[in-house]
């Protein structure tokens, strides 16, 4: 996993609540057996006017110019500003894979669906939860200000705005360290292999039908 430390990035606002993982990456693209290549199909049904299919070249597809990701001022955005319950729905990790492949490293929202937020942090994407009033303010600022950037610093757990706004956010220490150092969680867990084996032995004696 690529580490995440800090980012000063262009922000794109997605003004919808309950954005689900079917919207982030529609199911026809889940047939891939790879982790990469999902970026062109991120938000496929909102981004294009035709029906997207795996293997279809997206460069010539008709764009929905009303959709925010297609607007020239937001090209190159690395921070997605979103509303409540972002990433609800299925557990598909293809959703963060698509966001990452498109270029996003941070999603800022008042709340996230649990599995989605977890999946993000395992792929070098930082989910940042800010108060709903702060989010409202950011939506106003980003819409009013072309080229609006946010500065996101994971070490200090702070988001700063061009106008000097400064907001702190919470993150689990374990998740933070994994992101900061780009750690391989499986290797970390396997350092406790002896403890896992001892646990199994105890459980095998207590509830043998589980083994």
């Amino acid at each position, binding site marked *: 996993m690529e580490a995440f430390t800090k980012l000063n990035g262009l922000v794109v606002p997605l*003004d*919808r*609540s*309950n954005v*689900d993982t*079917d*919207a982030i990456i*529609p*199911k*026809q693209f*889940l*047939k*891939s*057996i*790879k*982790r990469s290549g999902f970026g062109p199909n991120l938000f496929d*049904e909102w981004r294009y006017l035709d*029906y997207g299919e*795996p*293997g279809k070249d997206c460069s010539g597809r008709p764009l929905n110019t009303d959709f925010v990701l297609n607007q020239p001022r937001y090209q190159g955005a690395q921070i997605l500003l979103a*509303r*409540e*319950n972002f990433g*609800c*729905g*299925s*557990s*598909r*990790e293809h959703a*963060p894979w698509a966001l990452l492949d498109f270029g996003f490293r941070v999603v800022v929202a008042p*709340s996230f*669906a*649990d*599995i989605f937020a*977890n*999946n993000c942090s*395992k*792929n070098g994407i930082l989910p940042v939860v800010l108060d709903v009033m702060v989010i409202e303010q950011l939506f106003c600022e980003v819409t009013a200000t072309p080229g609006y950037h946010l500065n996101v610093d994971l070490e200090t757990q702070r988001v700063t705005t061009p106008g000097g706004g400064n907001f702190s956010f919470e993150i*689990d*220490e*374990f*998740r933070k360290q994994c992101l900061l150092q780009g750690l391989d*969680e*499986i290797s970390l*867990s*396997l350092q*406790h*292999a002896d*403890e*896992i084996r001892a*646990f*199994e032995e105890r*459980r095998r004696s*207590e*509830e*043998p*039908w*589980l*083994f």
Partner: protein
Amino acid sequence: MSTKTLYDKIWDRHVVRCAEDGTCLLYIDRQLVHEVTSPQAFEGLRLAGRQPWRTNANLAVPDHNVPTTDRSKGITDPLSKLQVDTLDANCADFGITEFAMNDIRQGIVHIIGPEQGITLPGMTIVCGDSHTSTHGALGSLAFGIGTSEVEHALATQCLNQKKARNMLVSVDGQVGAGITAKDIMLAIIGEIGTAGGTGYVIEYGGKAIRDLEMEGRMTICNMSIEAGARAGLIAVDEKTIEYVKGRPFAPKGDLWEHAVAVWQTLHSDPDARYDREVHLDAATIEPQVTWGTSPEMVVPIGSRVPDPANEPDPVKRKGMQDALNYMGLEAGTPMTEIYPDTVFIGSCTNARIGDLRAAAAIIKGHKIAGNIRRALVVPGSGLVRKQAEEEGLDEIFREAGFEWRQPGCSMCLGMNDDRLTPKERCASTSNRNFEGRQGPGGRTHLVSPAMAAAAAITGHFVDIRTLED
């Protein structure tokens, strides 16, 4: 005195170790694997030169991509075929038991777990699928995970987890005649919202939940994720134990007696404390129908499509208007004047034998209405299908004009050929009414199997309690 919830008890029994920040290494008893979210995990194992920690803790089945029509020629879609073939190959390579596509035991992963006794009370169970919460109906802590965690569970038999908070949803009293588990769950989601359970494990209690048979409890726990909770739980009782008894993978003999003694402790203590409690009066629950593009956009059948103008919150108001536009509905329309084009009876929510019986009871002796373009019944497993055929349910469905299909996820998400076309309106027993969920531009109304059946024969949504024979 102990004041533990059921969740506390199962959690405590599975903690291998905890770090200072509360992140714990949680032992996983069972992992269920399907073809969509596992290929990258197996690839990860290979790249790192790792083997599964405990091969026999895993069970695999293809369900999302499989055709529900004739399977004798295999899978025609090359991408679906590749994904299913990849699962077959990975299971063969790593020695994981698989119920392959043409095995009679094949079916939707969350149907076959309980059906086979692979799901047992008190277990921790994971699967790369958000509806893993289903298995909580048997008093097991079961939750959906992403592919990185599928790989982690394969490699270590553990996951890094922080303990969630405890929520009790108690459905008190008795439901009225004709009210099903699906109606109860949609009413709960309507009450607490699709993010209402975020950060919690929900335990369902109250008389109306205890009164449900095991299959109904699975429907309830299945849609915990639609309420934002990662897992749902129901206490073990005599119904649970009776359900598990004699299933192929369930313990036998002395081991069975031992297991039952342990399982009988799997309930919350009388003085257990919850971080949040929600109470619903069962008697007030009516048959439910969703009108929008989120499961919380749900109303009783006797209501009308809500008017966004009455919603004070601007973000919610916009969401409602977007939903009405997508669904092609006008505010104020009676729900009984909505006419589906298609009826889908299936999915991990509602494709068990009891669901098919409930639908068949309504359909028997009727034909599907003239405006219904297609009506599908997709049993949850090969064994559910066989049982239904032995009971003659397939004949009832066929005679009414339904298509009787092979088991799989099918039109719940349309990864196979069973999809809605743009603007096609569907009465569906599945779990998600998101935009495009059942096919691009498709319009989904979530209902119970009985309500879907009634819509099929009348051509519109109707209160099953008023339906005449």
